[in-house]
């Protein structure tokens, strides 16, 4: 294995040993003979690349792991105090204990709410359902550890008429119930297939995607229609008793070989088509539609969609879900891109994807348990550092951790934590910790970050964008600078209270609070020198130091 020279972050080989030990320990407790998932992950990732043992980066240091997993599971960075405690601990199980603490924290459902909001709504603007209701629905779901398949079924069956599930109806309603947008989005998000090109003809590049697949999915939704209650207060996603999809390939039309428009009943891909009940004319509705009354058909196609998608027969859902949640933590899917699951684009590690998908299915879509296994794997815990003389690795080998830009929400909350604003808030709350109150107070801040750093509405998963206006905001806007003003308990306040003759303590606190690690000797010296010239204006100098650290590339990325 290549030698890592002077990496400022350092490596903790001990923790790798500890982890292996722990894996064996928890494995022995398992009822089944099968090894725990994280061991299978490591075995199959290693098997997927020749010379993996020599190529793989060493495990991340404790500091790097702490920062990474905290960002991934709670959406912000650890406090300086947490960093000190974790780094000082010699408990061989400390990584597992940390993971379990984070997964039990109130920040976990908040983080998952943010992730799912962006994932499922792609920052589309609010139309018919208040965003707050939708976010509360997501938050409550993850706080109760609702199974992922149940959440998806609820979203796909909510029509907005029941106040209790109104939030969940945002998925349909804020897309205006538009059948093509929904067909495409449901395919991408829950089936791992982007069928857009199959709307007008069989997919020209992907043999597996047929026009009949597109319309089989669209047939569940074609009867949907928006209904406004007479008081105009609510828009509901109603359904008619009639309406069929029709399609004709534009290629066949062009080549004059079209046999005319075709239709299909609802069906997922090449699955079984169920016969539909027939009703006499005039008896199609339980509640007849009227201008003032929302019709309810005797037979609802849409009510079948949730079960069709999440049911045991549809393997695509568990594959797509396992892959997508893997990608959240690993920066890349085993199938890449996430919505191109088809025969000509095999997974990088086919057997692993099978195991991940069946694990998620067997654990009844318990996402918390599933993500816990991934972060406990050595694969997740690889370092992101690679010396210039080390052989390069392909990203699909997962032999080295990826560099992932913080999402706008993560960046906002990491900055609030890095500058110690959250410490100050918690201190002010004394013995009554109330995350919701803090979240509410900083909602405006979060929204500013989303509008400045977020992607355009409706554009899924585009790459990283670093623009001049963002840098100007971070450099000059009063918002971030206001967090550098001393306030009881925040970082600037804590630093000013450290005696001027102890610059090393200042350097330690600065680095732990912002970059979740101790400074190395050069970095400590750099800070001493910076402060030595500024005895007359120490506070501005400290503020400049905080600014330089929280705007550094090391802070901006999860690594």
């Amino acid at each position, binding site marked *: 294995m290549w030698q890592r020279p002077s990496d*400022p972050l350092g490596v903790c080989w001990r923790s790798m040993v500890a982890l292996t030990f722990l894996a064996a320990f928890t494995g022995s407790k398992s009822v089944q003979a099968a090894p725990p998932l994280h061991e299978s992950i490591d075995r199959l990732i290693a098997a997927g690349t020749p010379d993996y043992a020599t190529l793989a980066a060493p495990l991340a240091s404790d500091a790097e792991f702490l920062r990474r997993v905290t960002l991934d599971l709670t959406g912000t960075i650890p406090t300086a105090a947490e960093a000190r405690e974790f780094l000082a601990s010699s408990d061989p199980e400390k990584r597992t204990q940390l993971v379990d603490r984070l997964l039990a924290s109130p920040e976990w459902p908040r983080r998952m709410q943010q992730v799912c909001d962006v994932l499922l709504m792609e920052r589309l603007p609010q139309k018919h359902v208040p965003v707050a209701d939708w976010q509360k629905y997501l938050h409550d779901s993850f706080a109760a550890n609702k199974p992922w398949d149940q959440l998806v079924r609820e979203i796909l069956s909510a029509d907005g008429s029941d106040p209790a599930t109104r939030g969940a109806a945002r998925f349909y309603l804020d897309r205006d119930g538009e059948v093509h947008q929904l067909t495409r989005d449901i395919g991408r998000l829950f089936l791992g297939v982007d069928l857009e090109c199959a709307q007008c003809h069989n997919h020209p590049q992907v043999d597996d995607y047929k026009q009949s697949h597109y319309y089989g999915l669209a047939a569940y939704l074609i009867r949907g229609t928006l209904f406004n209650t007479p008081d105009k207060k609510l828009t509901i996603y109603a359904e008619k008793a009639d309406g069929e999809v029709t399609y004709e390939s534009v290629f066949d039309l062009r080549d004059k070989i079209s046999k005319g428009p075709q239709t299909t009943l609802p069906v997922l891909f090449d699955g079984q088509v169920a016969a539909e009940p027939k009703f006499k004319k005039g008896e199609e509705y339980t509640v007849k539609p009227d201008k003032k009354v929302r019709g309810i058909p005797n037979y609802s196609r849409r009510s079948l969609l949730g079960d069709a998608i999440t049911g045991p027969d549809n393997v695509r859902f568990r594959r797509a879900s396992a892959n997508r949640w893997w990608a959240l933590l690993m920066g890349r899917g085993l199938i890449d891109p996430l919505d191109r699951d088809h025969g000509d684009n095999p997974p990088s590690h086919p057997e692993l994807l099978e195991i991940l998908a069946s694990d998620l299915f067997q654990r009844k879509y318990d996402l918390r348990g599933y993500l816990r296994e991934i972060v406990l794997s050595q694969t997740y815990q690889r370092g992101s550092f690679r010396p210039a003389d080390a052989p390069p690795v392909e990203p699909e080998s997962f032999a080295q951790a990826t560099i992932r830009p913080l999402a706008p929400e993560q960046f906002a909350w990491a900055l609030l934590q890095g500058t110690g604003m959250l410490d100050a808030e918690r201190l002010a709350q004394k013995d009554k910790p109330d995350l919701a109150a803090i979240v509410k107070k900083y909602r405006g801040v979060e929204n500013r970050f989303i509008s400045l750093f977020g992607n355009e509405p409706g554009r899924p998963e*585009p790459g990283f964008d*670093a*623009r*001049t206006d963002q840098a100007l905001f971070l450099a000059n806007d009063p918002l971030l600078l206001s967090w550098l003003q001393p306030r009881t308990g925040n970082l600037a306040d804590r630093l000013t209270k450290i005696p001027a003759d102890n610059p090393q303590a200042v350097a330690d606190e600065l680095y732990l609070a912002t970059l979740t690690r101790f400074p190395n000797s050069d970095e400590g010296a750099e800070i001493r020198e910076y402060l030595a010239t500024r005895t007359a204006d120490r506070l*501005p100098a400290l503020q400049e130091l905080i600014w330089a*650290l929280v705007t*550094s590339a090391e802070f901006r*990325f999860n690594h």
Partner: protein
Amino acid sequence: MNCHYACGTAAHLSRRSFLQGATTGALGMLGFSGMVQASAAQKLASQQKQVVVFFLKGGVSQLETWDPKPGTDTGGPFQKISTSAPGVEICELLPHTARQMQHLALVRGINTKENDHGKGAYIMQTGYRQQPGFEYPYLGSAFSRQLNPPDSPLPGYICLGAGARAQEAAFLGPKYAPLALPEEGAPQNLARPASLTEQHDMQRRLLRQRIGQRFAPGRRDSDLEAYNSSYEQAARLMARSDVFDFSKMPAKDEERYGKHSFARNCRVALRLLENGVTFIKVSHTNYDTHSENFNFHIEQLGEFDRPFATFMADLHERGMLQHTLVIVMSEFGRTPNINSKLGRDHWGTAWSIALGGCGIKGGAVVGKTNEKGTQVIDREVNGGHLFHTYYHAVGLDSSKSFYDKGRPVAKADPKTDALQEILV
């Protein structure tokens, strides 16, 4: 045709100046070189090729602008008028522009076969039809990459009025994305906070950079690079904040151009060109006239005509037209058929644009539509032809490719070529 720079190449001049600026050491590294380079940038501005696109959003009518058909059942109520270019007639709604036609060529045979706003705008600004899963760079980003001197303190592509998207740069990267100027002003957060001295601002930036330099090696990643370069660009921009101080624009110009926001944007565009900005897009909106087409065009073109013509005249008078390409485009034209609401609908089948200045033969006309404007009958062209023509006009080779992760992407559609008829 090649660019003629005083010293051979743009890179040469700016690199030499950069070295001179480097006596201030770290200043240059941080992007503060802009301060010491201001005069070099101005000198460069007199040589450098520049581009202004006027984008008339919604789809301006070709019949009420560049290709009038009075006296036919599709022609509408307006007459055509003669212009300063012999034999070239345009709609009477553009009397001021008519007096600048010696500088402008017309392309009257455009058929983009696209009647959707977004897709039409995409074709006109990328030269290609939209493809799922792949994004072509917009003209502004492409030219910013090719024409903007590498060490220019100013962004290569600035948008005035609505309509700038970071994604316009596509695979060229965020460095070439448009900078949108807010209504009536400089970019936000351009001023250094009052609490920071210039020296301390530089010190904190140097420190920021050093922390990043320790992190980056061993983590080769283009995202890291993009993040760090955004700070350098920001610092360069701050150093030239004088460029964005529009309060000093001569008051008498307000009389000549007009007071509304489009008129102001024309003046701002002129000032930005004078300061060396490479590519400017000025948007003017409200041309989507499905009803009341004629009243709306009286109103909108009434707003467009005088400031645009004044802008052309000013460019000419300052000698800037020789190196500045000006294009007036839209996402499509409007139907010859007049609908029941006296409107015209979307029409990508037979329509026109105007362009002039650098590399363009003023007063030339290429392409022809039939008597009622329902069809192109001579020299039919699409977005690809237009892109080749823009490239040729500014002296760039449109047969070359960009490379996206090693994959060649032709700068202009190889199935098309330039309109030599209107090139100098």
